[in-house]
């Protein structure tokens, strides 16, 4: 009860956790993460193993059915989910970090530095991300989960930089920043303690969106066969399904179930994001 009182005193957190969209989103997200954590532990098969008869629809033995060769789709999906969440997390962190730093510096400093950084941002923004990633991945002989995440993270940050920049620009003319400046605080302190700290909730939401962006870009690459060179991933399962004509053979479970779980995960993140937006932004709250 003490904790509840403390939460109630903090307006932002109180509104966040009592928002219905946040609650729905979090429950769904939690379930899917749970699936990724527990799934690989409870499955009886490995993802490369020929677990049973091929062409088997979802049943008690094979929850998501089997592939044409008899691999267990459930096992592949939960292992793939792990790799997808991991890539999204690392890539999202990198993208948010780059975007926030560039946005903060450009918005606070202004002038020529701002022009140069925004030029860079707009150039990266204009590139069709996937095309660039295809070019780079095509020439990379070995691709692991971490360098995939870094690669994707390096290309999806621009809109964050733009959004953070405009926030920083409006914050920098506020009185407490002026005060900080008069007190001769150094630039880093002003940037992080005054400006970034005041848009922390915003940065958290940016991270959620970047997490999603990274996942979508990575899964796209995996689907083209340019994902991590070893292991299984959600995109790879679906690529296999398309390559083996699973749909024409009526094996809908092979191509559709892994993508459906992925889509639900993204939907849950959108719900969390919209809910938080309502919670932190009183203007949207009453709706």
């Amino acid at each position: 009860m003490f904790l509840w009182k403390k939460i109630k005193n903090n307006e932002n957190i109180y509104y966040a956790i009592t928002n219905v969209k946040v609650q729905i989103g979090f429950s769904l997200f939690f379930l899917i993460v749970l699936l990724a954590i527990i799934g690989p532990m409870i499955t009886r098969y490995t993802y490369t193993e020929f677990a049973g008869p091929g062409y088997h629809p979802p049943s008690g033995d094979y929850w998501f059915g089997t592939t044409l060769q008899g691999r267990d789709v459930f096992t592949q999906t939960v292992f793939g989910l792990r790799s997808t969440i991991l890539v999204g997390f690392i890539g999202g962190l990198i993208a948010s970090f780059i975007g926030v730093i560039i946005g903060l510096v450009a918005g606070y400093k202004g002038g020529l530095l701002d022009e140069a950084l925004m030029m860079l941002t707009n150039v990266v923004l204009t590139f069709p991300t996937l095309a660039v990633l295809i070019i780079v991945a095509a020439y990379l002989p070995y691709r692991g989960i971490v360098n995939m995440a870094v690669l994707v993270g390096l290309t999806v940050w621009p809109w964050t930089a733009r959004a953070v920049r405009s926030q920083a620009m409006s914050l920098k003319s506020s009185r407490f920043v002026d005060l900080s400046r008069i007190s001769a605080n150094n630039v880093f302190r002003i940037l992080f303690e005054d400006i970034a700290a005041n848009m922390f909730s915003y940065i958290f939401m940016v991270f959620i969106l970047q997490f999603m962006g990274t996942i979508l870009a990575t899964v796209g690459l995996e689907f083209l066969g340019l994902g991590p060179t070893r292991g299984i991933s959600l995109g790879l399962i679906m690529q296999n399904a398309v390559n083996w004509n699973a749909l024409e053979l009526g094996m809908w479970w092979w191509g559709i179930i892994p993508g459906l779980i992925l889509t639900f995960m993204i939907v849950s993140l959108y719900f969390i994001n919209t809910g938080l937006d309502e919670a932190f932004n009183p203007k949207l709250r009453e709706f």
Partner: protein
Amino acid sequence: MGKYFGKKLAIYLATFFVAVTINWLIPRFMPGDPILSMLAQFQGLEGGQEIIQSRFVQSFGLDQPLIYQYLNFWRSLFRGDLGVSITIYPRPVIDIIRNSILFDIIVVLPAVSLSWIIGNKAGAFSGFNKKADSFLMPFFYFLTSSPYFWFAIVVVYVFGIRLNIFPTSHAYSSGMTPGFTLPFIINFIRHWFLPFFTMFLVGLGGWAIGMRNMIIYEKKANYSEYMKSLGAKDKMVRRYAFRNGVLPQVTGLAIQLGTIISGAILVQMVFSYPGLGYRMVQAVQNQDYFLLQGSFLALITMALAANFIVDIVYMIIDPRIRASYKEEK
């Protein structure tokens, strides 16, 4: 306006410059000399010797100073020489690109414009209508959360396999000869529909969500409240809110273009629809590096052209930019 335009133009030129440089840099400096091993393949083919002597190939040659190689790459680019494809030997890459780009435009352009227009309308409806919103909003979120290629898989399964009303791959049946004959046009449209439909629906969700959020914000704005207190009709309040919401949606279009083109690549893969994206991925699989570079460059150029169009549209509909143009004159 001149300044606004000049800035945009600078960004486009810089993007193009970076794209060309990446295009030369990556194959040139990748370990394992992928270009060299591809040239070795050319040697065995008829007329291959000539290709190796061409300026384009020379720009990856090892016997010249780097800066000359780089400049040579630009020079051959301006002369439209992008090398020769090895999978469809001996067709020049520029030729393949010219044929593929039509398939991109014919799918992406109608899909994007229609989804933008209808998505905005649907989003505005959802934003004003609390009852409809409670089930429309999750639906829009579902659409926009679907990865393009997964949605394409679902569409193939439902419309192509289950209902069996549309063909699910290639741009036209293999027995057909392209031309302006009625059977061919019908055949072409039937093949075109599912890729278009996929891109349209996935796009629609995002625009609807964007507009819905804008409307909810705008209808709380002071001018809306003031209009209501003056007794203005609901319809009028809605119209003003919509007009205010449209502008950020145009900016959103510019931001989303990259994602849309990426989505088109994936959709083309599912439907084996022979646009640039399909060619590009095919080139990766066959290690046809010249075709890969050529289609990459063509895709970037397409993205730049699309951005340019959005800029012009923005200028036309934003009264503030129009006003500043008049002042300058």
